[in-house]
């Protein structure tokens, strides 16, 4: 600890006042430490290296972070670059490297924490505010007291308000964790953390022991109030969980609301349409990775239409070759499509293998953000948005386009429609295609949160049917409402009943509900349905 403090002081001064390359020359040679087998030595070496002011320090630590730092049998350290290897110590190129006797410099979580602390400290004064922000956050988690002087210095010249608060919080964390500074400082630090008021703040406050009594007292009070906030927010949080689960259900069921709800086809292969969508995402991503890695971030933008087309076309194909012979025999469609789903599953298994496929989540979709007391995970947020868009489009198509008009005409009165010159078989095919296509798009979303495996569809088919039936067959709004209801109810039950019981309760409730309203929440009324 002591040496670390010294080094960071040195570093601070070095960075802030005069360039001092040779302040830490009494420190042990870090490079030999990095080559060691013990994680303690490596962690130690990192801090020393960071302090040494050696121009090679940054690239070396970076290499360590990216797992491109290797040890040769004779303890030399090499950095792997796109064009061959360079010597970590000197930075000059190294020829004739025998890859097989190279070993990664060993990294574990302890080492990683050291790296983060070091680079965190280094970045506190980086010109880029975003980097400073990240650095501050890292110091906040590492709570490294040796970065206190640095924090002070950084705060002194920090102008960006956001970064400033982050720095203050980091400072507070470091102070409290190390019981440094006057009682007054610590009290204000507790206040800062209370203002931050999130789980990390709470956990930090909870970890205090040997601080002054007054501080500890204030900390416990702070924890209490943070927890009060948490309880308050947990309702909203549950709502968010429910919404996101609901929108997943909605996406999964939307296609079925067309093929089953509107067309009356008990489409057991619906899940497989979703699955195909997910696999399309995988194919698109691998294609992009191969052809234009730069576009990876946009891969989903390509995947969505692709999935729609793939599933949609297959849907049309199915309708033309199978479903159309079975109209008016809904239960037969159940059997045929069930057989179909077996075939599709096995086909995918044969083509892609039976193990899961890796679908990467683009950066802008991963991670989460704390909005007040809420944790909003981006992928969930985007899925909710996506669901809204998909349903919106679907309704628009049905309501405002000529195709939609014809679809409704055909499904409401086939004979009349054909009498009016609508080519009903063609419309049937398109309707089924539309439903399948929507299922495909759902697959893209699901690939972001679930397995991409041949069984993907199976795990959603039952829920999808529940959603459609609960909402009332043939009523898209019903599907929306029922999906969200089921999602939210499920999520509010889970904490009390647990995941399994919660689901059981929902199912039983659903059965009983159907007894009360045999045609779902929003049944289509009138004589037409009776016959």
């Amino acid at each position, binding site marked *: 600890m002591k040496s670390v403090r010294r080094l960071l002081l040195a570093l601070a001064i070095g960075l802030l006042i005069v360039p001092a390359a040779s302040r830490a020359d009494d420190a042990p040679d870090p490079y030999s430490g990095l080559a060691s087998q013990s*994680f303690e030595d490596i962690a130690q070496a990192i801090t020393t290296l960071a302090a040494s002011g050696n121009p090679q320090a940054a690239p070396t630590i970076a290499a360590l972070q990216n*797992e491109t730092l290797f040890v040769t049998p004779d303890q030399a350290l090499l950095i792997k670059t796109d064009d061959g290897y360079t010597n970590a110590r000197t930075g000059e190129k190294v020829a004739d490297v025998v890859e097989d006797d190279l*070993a990664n410099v*060993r*990294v*574990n*979580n*302890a080492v*990683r924490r050291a790296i*983060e602390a070091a680079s965190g400290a280094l970045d506190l004064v980086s010109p880029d505010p975003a980097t400073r922000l990240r650095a501050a956050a890292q110091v906040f*988690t590492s709570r490294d007291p040796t970065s206190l002087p640095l924090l002070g210095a950084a705060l002194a010249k920090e102008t960006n308000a956001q970064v400033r608060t982050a720095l203050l919080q980091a400072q507070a964390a470091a102070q409290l964790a190390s019981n440094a500074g006057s009682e007054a400082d610590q009290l204000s630090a507790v206040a800062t953390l209370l203002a931050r008021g999130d*789980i990390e703040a*709470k*956990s*930090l*406050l*909870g*970890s*205090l022991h040997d601080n002054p009594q007054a501080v500890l007292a204030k900390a416990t009070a702070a924890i209490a109030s943070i927890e009060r906030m*948490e309880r308050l927010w947990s309702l909203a*949080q*549950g709502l968010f*969980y429910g919404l996101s*689960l609901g929108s*997943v259900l909605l996406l999964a069921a939307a296609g079925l609301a067309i093929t089953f709800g509107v067309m009356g086809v008990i489409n057991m292969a619906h899940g497989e349409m979703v699955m195909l969508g997910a696999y399309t995402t995988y194919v698109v991503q691998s294609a992009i990775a191969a052809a234009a890695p730069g576009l990876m971030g946009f891969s989903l933008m390509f995947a969505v239409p692709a999935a729609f087309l793939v599933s949609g076309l297959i849907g049309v194909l199915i309708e033309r070759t199978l479903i159309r012979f079975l109209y008016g025999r809904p239960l037969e469609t159940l059997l045929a499509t069930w057989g179909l789903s077996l075939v599709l*599953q*096995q086909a995918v*298994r044969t083509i892609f*293998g*039976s*193990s*899961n*496929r*890796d*679908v990467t*989540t683009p950066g802008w979709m*991963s*991670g*989460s953000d704390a909005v007040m007391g809420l*944790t909003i*995970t*981006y*992928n*969930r947020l985007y899925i909710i948005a996506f669901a809204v868009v998909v349903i919106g489009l679907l309704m628009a198509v049905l309501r405002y386009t000529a195709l939609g008009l014809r679809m409704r005409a055909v499904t409401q009165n086939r004979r009349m429609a054909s009498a009016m010159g609508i080519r009903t078989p063609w419309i049937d095919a398109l309707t089924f295609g539309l439903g399948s296509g929507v299922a495909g798009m759902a697959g893209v979303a699901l690939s*972001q*949160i*679930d*397995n*991409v*495996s*041949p*069984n993907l569809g199976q*795990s959603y088919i039952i829920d999808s049917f529940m959603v459609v039936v609960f909402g009332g067959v043939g009523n898209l709004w019903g599907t929306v409402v029922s999906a969200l209801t089921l999602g939210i109810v499920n*999520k509010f039950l*889970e*904490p009390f009943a*647990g*995941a*399994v019981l919660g*689901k059981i309760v929902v199912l039983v409730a659903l059965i009983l509900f159907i007894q009360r309203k045999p045609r779902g929440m929003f049944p289509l009324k009138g004589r037409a349905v009776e016959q």
Partner: protein
Amino acid sequence: MSTVRSWLRGAGIAATALAAFLGSAGLGASQAQAQGTIKVGILHSLSGTMAISETTLKDVMLMLIEEQNKKGGLLGKKLEAVVVDPASNWPLFAEKAKELINVDHVAAVFGCWTSVSRKSVLPVFKETDNILFYPVQYEGEESERNVFYTGAAPNQQAIPAVDYLMANDKVKRWVLAGTDYVYPRTTNKILEAYLKSKGVAAEDIMINYTPFGHSDWQNIVAEIKKFGSAGKKTAVVSTINGDANVPFYKELGNQGIKATDIPVVAFSVGEEELAGIDTKPLVGHLAAWNYFESVKSPVNTAFIKTWHDFTKKPNRTTNDPMEAAYIGFNMWIKAVQKAGTVDQDKVIDALVGVAVPNLTGGLSTMMPNHHITKPVLIGEVKADGQFNVVWSTPGTVVANEWSPYLEGSKDLIADWRAPMSCGNFNVKTGKCGGAN
């Protein structure tokens, strides 16, 4: 009258259908004798929910058999693999096991993944006195004469992992998260007892069970985060089963739980499972196994090469159950050679004490309790989906088939050598047969 005819036709169809496979039964048998091959049964699901994990083991068995035949087979005969698909359906496992043994007359069966499939076929192997090699880590609490367990028992996986986290990350608070079936239940029970014996307070242990294929982890992960915010270093011990892992880790990554904050150590997540996940957010999370693909040893390098050549997929991963299958197969080969026959009775006796190289560069031995000795490795997930071995036991560990931490089994031991030859010998009562 004509109705009768048509009906007899119907009967005909049914009868022929029956005859078809009953006949194929007899046929298969006669062929086995004729060709003078030694048949080996492979009983892994190629369809249904478990196909994800089990198909690989089918492939590796085919590879091993091919390799063995290249070396001239066994006892001068070629080995012949008989592959069937129990389709992740437990009763079908029993049926297929019977088929392999009674119809194809296999010398031994390599198969099963889930405990329930093993339990389902158990009576079949006892009844027909055949041999099953079971290549997956499991909950223990079992030792049968006809079954050889080459996967890890809880003490060869779970306990060392916990020890590592206690020592290196100073973990004080534990979340035991698992899928609600027998392996996690038992493992967590053992761990709970173990942790308490190490002075962990009850309120510092959180146990959570979820159904198979659980896909919405939002509030559970949030709960874990909350649990970890009590100011003590917290770790998650995950016995979550295959399918549910991908969404679980995705949720972890998204809710920003980094390994440096709350490390997750898993017992059912290997290279195969990681292949289905974007591992960048997961770097540093741990897994405890007895083998990792990244292990540097000549025999492992060779194994990986043959695997890639055999599957013609240069990036197909290997994993721990594959090693277990590899060890089991070689043990069987060696035992058969030792016994000079494939006769199950003799081979079963010959197997105890057989030692073969494992892929981590050491030797694994079949112990009298029909479990094997193996090293325990702790690996951290790397960005490339491989594991970085950060700790391993100095030597190999012997399996506790009966956990000393469980009420019902602490007095039990298994030893299949004469004179004891008992799977649940009670040292208290000195009698075979459990508690009494």
